[in-house]
C-alpha cells in the first residue's frame, strides 16, 4: 500500500498523456506543485499525473477532496492554477468558471469505458494505483485455472482482435496452445501506424499494466514464457511508462519467475520499432524483432506454427490485451452481452476531423457512426458546411458518405460498406474535403510504406497513384476510373500481405460512393471541394463572399486586398496558390 494515500490527503489529477502535454498539462501540473509548495500544502494534496482521459484540446484537472465531491476542470491554463488552489483547495469553493459543463458531459455520456477505465484516473507510473483498482487480480485468478478453460472463456466472450482484422482471440490462442515447440512467444503489437489513430498509445500511456496483465494471461493460456511488446519509437512517453511498469511489476513478482507462488514464469521485453508502417503486419513485425528489414512473408505457416525465430508465436494488439482482464474478472457472459451478434464488447475510437469534440472514445460495438458524431462528437464543427464523409479504418479503410452514417460499427456491417473496422481511427469530413484528394492521400501513404517485396503492391499502387494524380490535375479521362477499379481489384486479390490487399480500399470506397466527384474532376475539370489546386481559379465568388476578411488575414503572400464591407479580391500575379485562403473560408467563396 502506498503511504501517500493512507493519509487523508486530497487528490488532484492532471491528464498528462501526449495529448495533454501538447496542450500544456505539464506546466499546469508543475504549477500546481509549486503553488502547493509555496503554501505548505503538499502533504494535504497529492498531485497525480494520469494518462489522457480522451477529450482533446483540453488540459483536464480533477480535484478530489478527502471529503466532498469531485470536481473536474477543463481547459485549465497555467495561470488558472493559483485560482484553483486559492478558491477550491483553500477556500473550499469550486471555481465555477473552469468547471466542466455540458461539453464534457456529452463527451462521456454515451461511452462505455472498459479498456479506458483507468486512463485518466490513475498514475500509470505507480503500480499501487493499478493494484488498488483490482490490478493483477485477473492474472492471480487465471493461474488457478486450466489454460484450456481460460481459452474457452475468452472464446465464449467473443473477443476479436482489435488491430483491424478482427480474428477471434480465443481461437488464435488455441492454435498457439496446441502448437508444438520448445519455447513459445507472445507478442503485443503496439506498432500503431495508421495516421489518425492513437488508441493504443493512450492505453499504453494511461494504463500500461493492463496490457502487461493481458499479455501474462495470454502467455499462461498458450504456454509462453517470454513476451515482446513491439512499440513505435514515435511514442516516447508510452515507451517510458512501459519500462517503468515492467520494472515495477518485476519488483513485485508479478512478472518474472514463479508468479503468485505458482510455477508460471513470464518476462516481457520492449522492442522499439524503427519507423515502418508495414511492421504492423504480423510477419513483418516478427522479422523486425529478429533484426531484419520488416518484410512480410506468405502465410501459412501462421505465426502460431512458426513465428518468431521459427517458434510458435501469438500476436495480439494492445487494445485486445487490455480487454482480457475484464473478461476474466467479470466473466464471458457479461462481456458477450455488450455489443452486437458478430462483434462483442466495446471499441476505442480516435475521433477527429471536422467535429466539435475530438478525442478518444470507447463505445459498445454496434454504435452507429451518426451516434458517434452526434454524441461524443457533439456534431460537426462548422454548422453551415454539409457533412460529407467519414473515413474509418485508415489507409486500409474507406470513406463512407453521410447517407449511410446509420450503419452500426461492427466488423460485419463495416465490411459490407467496403470499409473495415481497422484499428479505430475515425475522421469526419465536410464538403471542404475532396474525396479524390483523400483517396490520393492514402495512396501516397501506402506507396511510401509499401515494403516492395511483391509486385502488385509495389508497382500497382504506384500506377494507381499516377492515375489519381492525373485526375486531380484535370488530365484524367473516364477510362482512368475503369483502370483504377480494375487495378484495385487485382491488387486486393494478389498482394502478399494485408497492407497491399487493403490499400485499394480508400479508392474503391470513394469510387463507389463519390463517383460524381471523380467525374467532376474529369469532365467538368472542377474540384467541387476546392482542394485540387490545378482545378481552382483562385477568384472570389461574390455571390458567396460575406466580406468577412478572413482570407485577407490568412494570405501569407499579400495577394488579397480587402476592406471592411467590401468583397475580397485576389491578385493573380501575387497569388502562390497555397490555398491558405480557401482553408479559412467556410463559405466556399473562393473557387
Amino acid at each position, binding site marked *: 500500500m502506498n503511504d501517500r494515500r493512507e493519509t487523508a490527503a486530497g487528490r488532484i489529477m492532471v491528464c498528462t498523456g501526449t495529448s495533454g502535454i501538447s496542450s500544456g498539462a505539464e506546466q499546469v501540473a508543475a504549477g500546481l506543485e509549486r503553488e502547493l509548495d509555496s503554501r505548505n500544502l503538499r502533504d494535504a494534496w497529492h498531485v497525480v499525473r494520469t494518462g489522457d482521459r480522451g477529450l482533446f484540446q483540453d488540459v483536464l484537472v480533477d480535484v478530489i477532496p478527502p471529503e466532498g465531491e469531485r470536481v473536474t476542470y477543463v481547459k485549465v491554463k497555467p495561470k488558472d492554477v493559483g485560482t484553483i488552489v486559492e478558491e477550491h483547495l483553500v477556500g473550499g469553493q469550486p471555481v465555477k468558471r473552469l468547471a466542466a459543463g455540458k461539453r464534457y458531459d456529452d463527451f462521456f455520456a454515451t461511452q462505455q469505458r472498459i479498456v479506458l477505465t483507468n486512463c485518466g484516473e490513475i498514475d500509470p507510473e505507480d503500480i499501487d494505483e493499478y493494484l488498488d483498482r483490482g490490478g493483477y487480480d485477473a492474472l492471480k485468478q487465471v493461474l488457478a485455472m486450466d489454460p484450456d478453460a481460460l481459452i474457452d472463456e475468452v472464446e465464449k466472450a467473443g473477443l476479436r482482435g482489435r488491430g483491424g482484422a478482427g480474428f477471434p482471440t480465443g481461437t488464435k490462442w488455441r492454435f498457439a496452445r496446441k502448437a508444438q515447440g520448445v519455447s513459445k512467444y507472445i507478442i503485443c503489437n503496439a506498432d500503431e501506424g495508421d*495516421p489518425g489513430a492513437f488508441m493504443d498509445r493512450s492505453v499504453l500511456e494511461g494504463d500500461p499494466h493492463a496490457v502487461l496483465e493481458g499479455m501474462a494471461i495470454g502467455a499462461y493460456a498458450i504456454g509462453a514464457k517470454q513476451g515482446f511488446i513491439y512499440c513505435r519509437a514515435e511514442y516516447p512517453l508510452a515507451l517510458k511508462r512501459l519500462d517503468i511498469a515492467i520494472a515495477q511489476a518485476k519488483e513485485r513478482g508479478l512478472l518474472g519467475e514463479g508468479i503468485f507462488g505458482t510455477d508460471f514464469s513470464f518476462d516481457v521485453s520492449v522492442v522499439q520499432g524503427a519507423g515502418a508502417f508495414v511492421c504492423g503486419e504480423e510477419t513483418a513485425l516478427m522479422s523486425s524483432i529478429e533484426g531484419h528489414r520488416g518484410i512480410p512473408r506468405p502465410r501459412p505457416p501462421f505465426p502460431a506454427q512458426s513465428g518468431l525465430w521459427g517458434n510458435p508465436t501469438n500476436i495480439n494488439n494492445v487494445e485486445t490485451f487490455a480487454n482480457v482482464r475484464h473478461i476474466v474478472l467479470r466473466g464471458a457472459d457479461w462481456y458477450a452481452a455488450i455489443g452486437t451478434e458478430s462483434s462483442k464488447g466495446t471499441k476505442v475510437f480516435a475521433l*477527429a476531423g*471536422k467535429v466539435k469534440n475530438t478525442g478518444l472514445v470507447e463505445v459498445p460495438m454496434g454504435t452507429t457512426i451518426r451516434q458517434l458524431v452526434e454524441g461524443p462528437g457533439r456534431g460537426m464543427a462548422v454548422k453551415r458546411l454539409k457533412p460529407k464523409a467519414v473515413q474509418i479504418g485508415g489507409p486500409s479503410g474507406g470513406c463512407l458518405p453521410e447517407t449511410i452514417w446509420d450503419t452500426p460499427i461492427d466488423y460485419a456491417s463495416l465490411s459490407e460498406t467496403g470499409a473495415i473496422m481497422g484499428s479505430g481511427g475515425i475522421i469526419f469530413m465536410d464538403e471542404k474535403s475532396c474525396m479524390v484528394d483523400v483517396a490520393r492521400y492514402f495512396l501516397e501513404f501506402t506507396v511510401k510504406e509499401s515494403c516492395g517485396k511483391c509486385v502488385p503492391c509495389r508497382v500497382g499502387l504506384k500506377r494507381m497513384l499516377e492515375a489519381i494524380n492525373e485526375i486531380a490535375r484535370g488530365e484524367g479521362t473516364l477510362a482512368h476510373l475503369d483502370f483504377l477499379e480494375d487495378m484495385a481489384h487485382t491488387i486486393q486479390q494478389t498482394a502478399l500481405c494485408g497492407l497491399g490487399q487493403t490499400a485499394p480500399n480508400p479508392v474503391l470506397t470513394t469510387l463507389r460512393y463519390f463517383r460524381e466527384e471523380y467525374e467532376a474532376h474529369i469532365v467538368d475539370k472542377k474540384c467541387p471541394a476546392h482542394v485540387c489546386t490545378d482545378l481552382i481559379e483562385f477568384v472570389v465568388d461574390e455571390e458567396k463572399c460575406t466580406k468577412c476578411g478572413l482570407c485577407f488575414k490568412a494570405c501569407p503572400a499579400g495577394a488579397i486586398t480587402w476592406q471592411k464591407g467590401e468583397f475580397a479580391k485576389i491578385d493573380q500575379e501575387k497569388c502562390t496558390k497555397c490555398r*491558405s485562403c480557401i482553408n479559412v473560408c467556410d463559405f466556399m467563396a473562393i473557387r
Partner: protein
Amino acid sequence: MTNATNAMTKTGAGTGQDVDRSEVEPIVAAFQGRQGAIIPLLQEIQRRFGYVPKTAVDVISEKMGVYPVELYGILTFYAQFYLEPRGKHTIKVCQGTACYIMGGKLLLDQLEEDLQVHDGETTEDGQFTLETVACLGCCGMAPVMMVDGDFYGSVKTNILDSILEHYREQDKQ
C-alpha cells in the same frame, strides 16, 4: 542530396570527418551475442551520434558478422535511421489524416518553400531538418507541427515565420 551534402560540409561533419572507431566499439561490444540485436544496436548508435556514421556500419559489420549490405538494407528500410548528420532543430510537420484535412499539407508546402528543402532534408545553414510524420496523435489540435520537443497546434501558414524566427533567435543567444 545537394542540400544535405552542403549542410554536412558546413557543419564539418561530412563523411570525411566520420567518428572514431574507438567511440563505436564499446557500444557494439555491449550488444554482442544478443538475439535480434542489430536494430537496437543501430538505434543506440543513432542515439549517441544523431545519425549512423559509416565507421559504425563498418565496425558493426566486423564485430557482429553481418555484411554491410544487410546493414544498409536495414538502415534504408526504416524511416527512423539517418545516414547523415541532422540540422540543429528538427521540424516535424504532421501529415496524419486529421492534419491533412485541416490544412497540414499547406504547412508543409510553405515550410518547403521558406526553407528551400524537401521532406527529410536539412537546410543549407544546418539550422533545420524538415520532416513529415504520419501522426503526432494530437488530432484535436490539427494541423500540428513540432519543433524539437515543442508542440504547435492549430498552426496557420502566416505564423510559420515567427515560429522559425523564435529558434533562430534562440541560437543567436
